[in-house]
């Protein structure tokens, strides 16, 4: 078991009323899963991914990651866990505009105290694998959306995370670019990376090994493990 959510609640208070973002949510993800989460806008997909990625708090419930109780972690512990085990891919790529492709990919390693020579080797591997060696000195603004997302994925993977979280990774891409990214995900999954993606698209969801539907912060059907 890679991670497990038990009865997660998350809410915000608006005008004295609780508005539930996540409600009574259970989830179990095994190592090597490729899970697609579907649901309309505002159903809580992003919130769920942020909670899973330890970027966001929840109000109630338990979250175990590799058997460790994330809900009992202090900020520092959580940050360490996140940095070591989790990679993110965003719909809007979220590359740092002031850094080149090479530097963007390298950044997570800087925060993990990887030696300079090792960093060089790892980034070179990644550039090679994604076929963007020729683009390494370009800035994000000089790339197409698909290429930017490739860089985004490469950056998410450079730290060798156990879990890759992708929030509508193809939302800003055309269908050909989408297909490429999805095929890449499939490949990564086959190599052992656990992936959870949020998506609107049935086609994309189909790349996953299973699909769950979210509506108003709850599963529409009971998830099977």
């Amino acid at each position, binding site marked *: 078991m890679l991670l497990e959510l038990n009865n997660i609640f998350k809410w915000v208070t608006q005008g004295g009323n609780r508005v539930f973002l996540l409600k009574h949510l259970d989830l179990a993800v095994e190592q090597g899963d490729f899970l697609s989460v579907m649901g309309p806008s505002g159903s809580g997909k*992003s919130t769920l991914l*942020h909670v899973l*990625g330890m*970027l*966001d708090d929840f109000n109630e419930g338990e979250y175990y990651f590799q058997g460790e109780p994330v809900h009992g972690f202090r900020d*520092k512990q959580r*940050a360490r866990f*996140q*940095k*070591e085990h989790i990679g*993110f891919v*965003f719909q809007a790529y*979220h*590359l*740092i*505009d*002031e*850094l080149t492709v090479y*530097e963007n990919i*390298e*950044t*997570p390693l*800087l*925060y*993990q105290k990887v030696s300079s020579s090792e960093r060089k080797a790892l980034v070179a591997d990644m550039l090679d694998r994604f076929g963007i060696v020729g683009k390494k000195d370009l800035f994000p603004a000089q790339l197409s959306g698909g290429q930017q997302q490739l860089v985004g994925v490469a*950056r998410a993977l450079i*730290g060798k995370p156990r879990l890759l979280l992708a929030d509508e990774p193809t939302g800003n891409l055309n269908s050909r670019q989408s297909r490429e990214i999805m095929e890449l995900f499939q490949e990564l999954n086959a190599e052992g990376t656990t992936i959870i993606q949020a998506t609107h698209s049935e086609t994309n969801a189909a790349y996953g090994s299973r699909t769950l539907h979210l509506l108003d912060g709850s599963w529409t059907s009971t998830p099977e493990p």
Partner: protein
Amino acid sequence: MFRNYLKIALRNLLRNKLNTGINIISLAIGLSASFVIGLMVYYDLTFDTYHPDSGRVYRVTSRFTSPQDEFVNPGVPIPLPQAAREEMTGLEIVAGFNTVDLHKAGNPESGLDFKDPGPQVFADAAYFKLFKYDWLAGTPEGLGEPYRVVLTRERAARYFPELNPAQTLGKTLVYNDSIPATVAGIVAAPQGRTDLVFEEFLSSGTFQKTDRGHYAIAADWGSTNSSDQLFVRLSPGTDPTAVQKQLDRIAKAQESDYDRQYNHHRTFELQPFSDLHFNSELQTFDNGRQPATSRPVLTGLGCIALFLLLLGCINFINLSTAQADQRAREIGIRKTLGSSKKQLLLQFLGETFLLTLLAALLSIVLSYFLLDTFAEFLPEGLHFGNFRETPVMLFAGALLTGVALLAGFYPALVLTRFQPVRVLKNQVVNTPGKPTLRRILTVFQFAIAQIFIIATLLVGKQIRYMQNKDHGFRTDAIAYLHAPWHLTSLDKNERLAREIAKIPQVRAVALGGNPPASNSSSTSTAVFFRDSTEIQSPLQMLAGSREYYDLYNFEFLAGRKPLNDTILEYVINEAYLHIIGFENPEDALNQNIRMNDENRPIVGVVRDFNPRTAAAKIGPIAIMPDWDRSREYSRFNFIHLDLKNPGDGSLSPTISAIEERYKEVYPDADFELNFMDETIAGFYQDERSLAKLLGWAMGLSVLISCLGLLGLVIYTTNRRTKEIGIRKVLGASLAQLGLLLSRDFLVLVGIAFLIAAPLAGWGLYSWLQDYAYRTELSWWVFILSGVGMIALALLIMGLRTLAVARKNPVESLRTE
């Protein structure tokens, strides 16, 4: 990691060129002011620090108190050094010495004479034990006998150009054509900054052979001359108060019957060596030296530098927090990529430091020009090269770090506080950093600028007031020249006056003493008996011929001029009239004043005139004819001239004609013609320096504040482009839009004025209290400066807001 940060920092700085420019300029101004002022402080604080144990060295000075007044003298009675050696304990070294200005040194071998070679000192070996000199030849003990002299290498090279130090030993110099001295030693010039300006050290024994020698022999406790100096070094661990007690005991023992009768007291005081450089009352040994920047002035300058630095930091804080959302995305991403808050904090502080460093580079260039502009404030020895000294470099480094922390810490905190989730969800449209804080800082900036504006206007007003104030005597087209003091003779002066009077451009000539307003004055104690009470008061004495009254156009309230130039009759001013208790000038006529046991009548009363600056109250003054002529000494050593205004505006032919006559009478003397109006302007040198300094402080603080305002205005208008577009579509006019965008800032500038005005008013009110004659604290000064500031702010905002408001709304709305 570091390289990554450096790159992103540089790219960010380049991307926001306007912000970077504003920040760098603002910080550079503050930094260069700090560099220059720091340099001044460092310079003045490093005088005479190289002597061994200089912390234990003190100068003994004299203070005199009487029921009428109190004054100090940097010297001591001649017998005190001897008494200190014999009667006092706790003193490691007692060095008494006598300064002197011998007007001529001659080398009999070469036949060369050197006029006014500079200050000399009569000293003994103790002097050289106390103060550190490197000996190139000879020993301090060489000064044990009379007629010995020790020279600095530079001085020796001047007198004996051909010889090296060792060869110079045993050579002879003759001072004032009468005092021979054998060279007993050569020392190197002092290795650090020093106020001990002496270059020739004659043996103490020689002092008795000079014209002041009889004082040395008489060893009189009753007279004190500032040239008789006493320095001591306390033994380690000696409490200065214990030494002070012994000095008090000696002073008490030497009190005269006269002192006791008239309640006069003399005390000897210990002046720390480190105070020597700063104490303008006790002075140093270099009379021609500009007085050291006093500690209060240094403090004031330090405050100005600090304020300018603060203003620069505020710009940085305001602009970086206002634009924090531009960086928010990067921060969010970095956080999801695993950056800790601490790492981000360091990254931003590093960026601030880089910016500060760039500002520092610019400020070094600026400092160069500032040093040039403020040369008149700076001691001669202070120059750009002082930057290379290690303590200065260390200070600069510490200052940069401090500024980077001060400016960068808060913005860094604001930036790193962003929650990555909110950033990634594009929820950071809220105001990053507290706008309240930005408002407070902006108000602070403008309040400082406003205070400087008000101060500049008012100080300028006071200067104009003082310069234009009626001095009570004629000042225009009046010039005077001084006969050389050691050659002066009445015959020659009279001949010179007659010759000069023949020059057609000279309307009138008058012999006399000092002009009515000058830097030197002589004051005696006058006694006046009225209804059997004795009125004792100081009375400043001016010597003037009958023509002197006409030339300076004194206004007589009663009486007449003295009958001739030798009769002893007083013409007094109103101030003395009131001191001796008369209201009506007529009543004082023919009353007697007693001075030096002689009773002489008052024959005239003139309206008060200003003998110096308008800062000081007019004291009692009497004008008298040549009162010492019966003693074979003439006070008439000035020639006063009334010049015709030349039609073509050039005075130089007249001046050279006068010089020609002067050289005929005094061929060896230096000719110098002084103009009365220039002399008076010279009295206000300090005030004009202050005005210049304030003017600069004002200009720079206004510049920094306005740059900051510009940055903020650009930022807000950019943020509100869409709002402006909508409002325009809905029919808002340009003026309405301009007002909308400027209103918030105008309120801030207004608040700043409300804070600044009373503060400035209070400060300037207390500044004006130092002046006996002062300008009004007019309301228009405040209104003018307030209106000026607001107008300037409006101009800056108007330029920007109008540009935005005029944009076609379709464009601004489409970009959304």
